């Protein structure tokens, strides 16, 4: 697979919505350590909302599918993560407006757009233990993969690895946003729950494009 058509994207989102609820407990436990423990439930409800929305999105172009999936997620599972995630998908989707397919070359710009959308919505800066701390390293790695002429599957695999390393790095950060922000130094040592969710999604994507 070199590019993602609308049908591909819908197949990926279907797989994503099937897999992610299985990580609910893990995400809930992470979020409970320096938050309110709702993230696992947010993911479970939000993924179900995306799945329910998919049948009506088949005729749309990939960018619109992404944007509408994000809105569907936050409609049913609004929350800090819901708003941030919806913003990310809407920003990424806007980036490929009008394109019938998404290629590896589109991905760096999409993730960069997602990151700046998230930053504008929530005011976070790098190093503050938010999903920005995985999005920005992902965008950089994607950039490098495109420059190196990688195939989609290889680029995605490398980006997943980069995401995992970035996630590991969130452990040493102190949370400044969301409920985690009130736990201050108690948040150090635990990996960021929101970034964990993003990484799990990236893992799913890498496996999807690998076939």
């Amino acid at each position, binding site marked *: 697979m070199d590019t993602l058509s609308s049908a591909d994207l819908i197949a990926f989102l279907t797989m994503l919505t099937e897999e992610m609820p299985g990580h609910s407990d893990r995400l809930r436990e992470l979020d409970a350590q320096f938050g309110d*423990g*709702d993230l696992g*439930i*947010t993911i479970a409800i939000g993924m179900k909302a995306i799945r329910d929305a998919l049948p009506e999105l088949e005729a749309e172009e990939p960018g619109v599918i992404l944007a509408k999936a994000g809105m569907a997620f936050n409609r049913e599972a609004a*929350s*800090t*993560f819901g708003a941030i995630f919806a913003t990310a998908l809407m920003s990424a989707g806007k980036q490929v407006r009008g394109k019938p397919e998404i290629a590896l070359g589109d991905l760096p710009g999409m993730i960069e757009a997602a990151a700046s959308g998230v930053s504008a919505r929530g005011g976070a800066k790098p190093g503050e233990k938010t999903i920005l701390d995985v999005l920005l390293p992902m965008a950089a790695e994607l950039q490098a993969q495109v420059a190196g002429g990688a195939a989609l599957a290889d680029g995605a695999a490398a980006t997943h690895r980069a995401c995992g390393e970035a996630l590991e790095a969130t452990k040493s950060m102190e949370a400044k946003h969301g*409920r985690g922000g*009130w736990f*201050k130094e108690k948040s150090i040592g635990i990996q960021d729950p929101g970034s964990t969710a993003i990484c799990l999604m990236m893992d799913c994507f890498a496996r999807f494009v690998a076939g």
Partner: protein
Amino acid sequence: MKKLINDPFEFVDETIEGVLLAHPEHLKRCGGSKRALMRADGPVEGKVAIVTGGGSGHIPVFLGYVGPGLCDAVSIGNVFSSPSPDDMLAATKAAHGGAGVLHLYGNYSGDKMNFGMAAEMAEMDDIEVATVLATDDVSSAPVEEIDRRRAVAGLFFAYKIAGARAEEGAGLAEVVEAAEQAAFATRSMGVALTPCTIPAAGAPTFEIGEGEMEIGMGIHGEAGVRRGEIVPVDDVVDELLGHVLADMPFKAGDEVAVLVNSLGATPPEEVYIMYRRVTAVLGEAGIAIHRSFIGEYATSLEMAGASVSLLRLDADLKRLLDAQAYSPFLPRLGA
């Protein structure tokens, strides 16, 4: 998990159904929205509408604060999670009586981002929207960073004051001013004894050891200022008030309203025992109590614990606090 519920994922919708069946003369849905409710007699033409909302699991927060002299509409999220911008927008549009809308809610990032989106959308529909956030929990950030403070039960005072000002026929700017004054003049601090369990999670969010309490813990289990052995409640009250009084600071000669809130599982008897101590401490500090509220004003599922809130009054705030207001979720409010 000791809960009287059905499917945990239906918890919020079934609660709303029960509430609407119980209080049809008081509350109705905002159009077809499943998660937005409003005064049954709304929209009130010509009145500034107050719209609130937030995560579920805190009754009477938030839907219990809709009513004459209080809020006009509410959007309702999943347990401990923000409502969606769609429901916030539905509440905003339905409650709008032509005089603008105040979004009045607690300072939590999910609510802020989602209300922010809703406000942007409402403005595209030519509805003037202003926002005021409650930040009463002194344990959540130092006073220099008051904008980072979260809201706990003291949110009640902001509703009561802003609601009364809107009911008087004031314009949006004036209602905003009253809400800001109330929000700024309110300081709270709580103590938690037991955790709560999100129904869909099925396991407690956090743990507090047998014989332990956490001073300053937030109503979703957010970190407080210290954890330690449970001590006699008079000492707990002294500690809470120590933080609260030093924060504004409150001074001899001040006049205040007091709220002693139970998180739900703490019995009414115990919050009255707390109030007894509050009167002694304030009396000694030369601070006069104008009016008191004792009971369940913001709960957190089956959490045990309580909080003490003070609102520093001036003549305006006193008038607004004393004005009539009504919700079937609260004891009679106002003179």
